[in-house]
C-alpha cells in the first residue's frame, strides 16, 4: 500500500481537520458527534437535508454541505456507515423546525444506523422522512430494483432536495422531489484498477493488465463480470446502452448526463467518454438538458468511471438550476 497517510486509523479525523479549516466559511463540525453541518445552520423554517455514509468518497458527502444543497452529513470511517448518534446529532443540528429528510444509499449499515437515528429524532419531536437511492443498474435486476445500490445518482437527489428545501418546500414535497429523481435516474460503473482501504492495506479486487471490472460498486465491490479492456468508445457504448434500456430513456426525452470519475481516472478520459454518450443520445434524439463531468462520488483511488442519465421534467430542471454554494459544487444565482 502506497498512500500519503499517517496512522491508517486516523485518516478520517486528519482529513476532517484539513477540510474544516479550508472550508470554514461553509462548514463546521459538531462537538457531540462526528457530523459536519452548515456553518450558518440550522436555517429557520427550512427542511433540513441530511445524508451520511462511510468516508472515502470525496467530494461526497461533506463537499456538498452548504446553501442550496446539504445541511448536515454524518461522517463514518472509510466505507463504514456512521453510528446512529452521529446521524441523530446531524438531524438535530439541521432541524429548522420543518423536519429533516434523510437521503441514503442502499447499504445495510446506512439503513440500520439511520433507522436508529430516525427513532431517536422522532422521540425528540423532530419529524423525519427518508429516501433510499437505488440508481445502480449493475447491482441487481430491474425486477428487484429496490435492492440495487445507490451510487452517484444521489448527487442529483442532494441538489434537488436542497433546492426544494431552500425554496420553502415542505418535508413531503422535498421527499417527493427526491423520489422523482430516484425513479428517473440510472447509473452504471466500470473500473480498471482497485482501491485500498487504509486499515485493510490490500486492494479490494485484482485485475489482469487487460481486464476491467464491469458494473463495479463505488467501494470496489466486484461487478457482474471481469471483461477484456476496451476503447473509451466501446465501453461507454456498452454501459450507456444498458443505462438507456433500463429506464428506458426514449426518443424525445430530455436528460441530464453525469460522467463521474471514481478517483483515479483523469478528466481528459472522462470528457472522451462524455463525448461518446452525447453522440449516442443525439442519434436517438434524446436532448441533453444538463451535463456534469468530473469527480462527484469517488471510491478512494479507484480508476474507473460511471455513466448516469436522469430524465428531466420542468420541476427537476428548475431545481437543478437553482443556486447552490458549497465547498465543491456551486451554481451561480
Amino acid at each position, binding site marked *: 500500500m502506497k498512500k500519503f497517510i499517517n496512522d491508517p486509523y486516523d485518516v478520517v479525523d486528519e482529513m476532517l481537520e484539513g477540510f474544516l479549516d479550508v472550508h470554514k466559511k461553509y462548514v463546521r463540525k459538531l462537538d457531540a458527534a462526528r457530523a459536519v453541518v452548515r456553518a450558518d445552520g440550522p436555517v429557520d423554517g427550512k427542511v433540513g437535508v441530511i445524508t451520511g455514509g462511510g468516508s472515502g468518497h470525496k467530494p461526497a458527502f461533506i463537499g456538498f454541505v452548504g446553501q442550496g444543497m446539504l445541511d448536515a452529513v454524518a461522517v463514518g470511517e472509510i466505507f*463504514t456507515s456512521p*453510528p446512529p*448518534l452521529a446521524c441523530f446529532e446531524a438531524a438535530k443540528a439541521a432541524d429548522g423546525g420543518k423536519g429533516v429528510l434523510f437521503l441514503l444509499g442502499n447499504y445495510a449499515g446506512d439503513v440500520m444506523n439511520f433507522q436508529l437515528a430516525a427513532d431517536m429524532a422522532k422521540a425528540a419531536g423532530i419529524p423525519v422522512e427518508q429516501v433510499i437511492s437505488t440508481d445502480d443498474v449493475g447491482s441487481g435486476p430491474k425486477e428487484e430494483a429496490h435492492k440495487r445500490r445507490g451510487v452517484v445518482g444521489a448527487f442529483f437527489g442532494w441538489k434537488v432536495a436542497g433546492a426544494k428545501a431552500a425554496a420553502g418546500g415542505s418535508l413531503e414535497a422535498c421527499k417527493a422531489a427526491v423520489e422523482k429523481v430516484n425513479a428517473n435516474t440510472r447509473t452504471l460503473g466500470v473500473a480498471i484498477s482497485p482501491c485500498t482501504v487504509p486499515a485493510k492495506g*490490500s486492494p479490494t479486487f485484482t485485475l489482469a493488465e487487460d481486464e476491467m471490472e464491469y458494473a463495479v460498486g463505488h467501494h470496489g465491490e466486484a461487478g457482474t463480470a471481469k471483461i477484456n479492456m476496451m476503447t473509451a468508445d466501446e465501453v461507454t457504448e456498452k454501459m450507456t446502452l444498458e443505462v438507456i434500456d433500463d429506464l428506458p430513456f426514449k426518443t424525445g426525452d430530455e436528460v441530464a448526463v453525469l460522467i463521474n470519475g471514481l478517483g483515479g481516472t483523469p478528466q481528459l478520459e472522462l470528457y472522451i467518454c462524455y463525448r461518446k454518450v452525447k453522440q449516442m443520445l443525439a442519434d436517438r434524439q434524446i436532448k441533453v438538458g444538463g451535463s456534469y463531468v468530473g469527480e462527484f462520488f469517488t471510491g478512494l483511488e479507484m480508476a474507473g468511471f460511471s455513466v448516469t442519465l436522469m430524465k428531466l421534467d420542468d420541476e427537476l430542471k428548475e431545481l437543478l438550476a437553482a443556486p447552490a454554494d458549497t465547498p465543491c459544487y456551486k451554481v451561480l444565482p
Partner: protein
Amino acid sequence: MADTISAPRMLKALEAMCDIIETEKDYLSELDGAIGDGDHGVNMAKCFREVKKKLAESQGADMSTLFNNVGMVVLNSVGGAMGALYGTFFLKMAQESAGKGELALSDLVTMLQTAEQGILDIGKASPGDKTLLDTLAPAVRALEQSAKDGLALPEAMANFAQAAQKGMESTTDMLAKMGRASRLGERTIGHQDAGATSCYFILRALASAAK
C-alpha cells in the same frame, strides 16, 4: 458451578469477549475479505478496544448498567452494520436485565430472546440468510430447550455455546441474502460468514460466565 451469574462474573466474561475479538481480528477480516470488504476484524477490534476501556470504568456496576455501557459503546464507536446490530443486542440485554441482581437461566432466556428480536427488527434478515442470526437463533433455541428440560445453568450455557458454533459453521453452505455479500450470489457459497463468526465469539464469551 453456580445456578446464577453475578455482575462481577459477567464483567469478567465481557472482558474476555474483548480479548477474544482482539485475538481473532485477522481471522475475521480474512473471512470477510473472501465475500465482503475485508474490514470486519479491524472494525470489531477497534470497537471492542473501546468496550474494554469502558469496562475498566464499570467495576461494581449492576448487570443492566454493564450491558448498557457495552451497548452504547458498540452502537456509537465504529458504526457500520455491526455497530447497529451488536449495539442493539447489548442494549436489549440491558433492557431485560433492569432491576435484576444475579441472572438465573430463565432471566438469560428472556434477555437473549429480546436481543434476538431486536436484531430481527433492525436487521430485517431471516435465519438462513447467512448472517449472525444463523449463530444467534439456534443458540437461543438451544437455551430455551435447556430451560424446558430443567438443565442446570452451566450445562444450559454449554449447550448454548455449542449450538452457536454449529450455527456459525452452517453458514458455510448458505447463499448470502443480506449486505454487500448478497450481490455476489453463488460466489458466497463455501465461505463461513464473518458476522456469524464474530457472533459466535461473543456468545461463547457470554457462556463462559456460567463456568
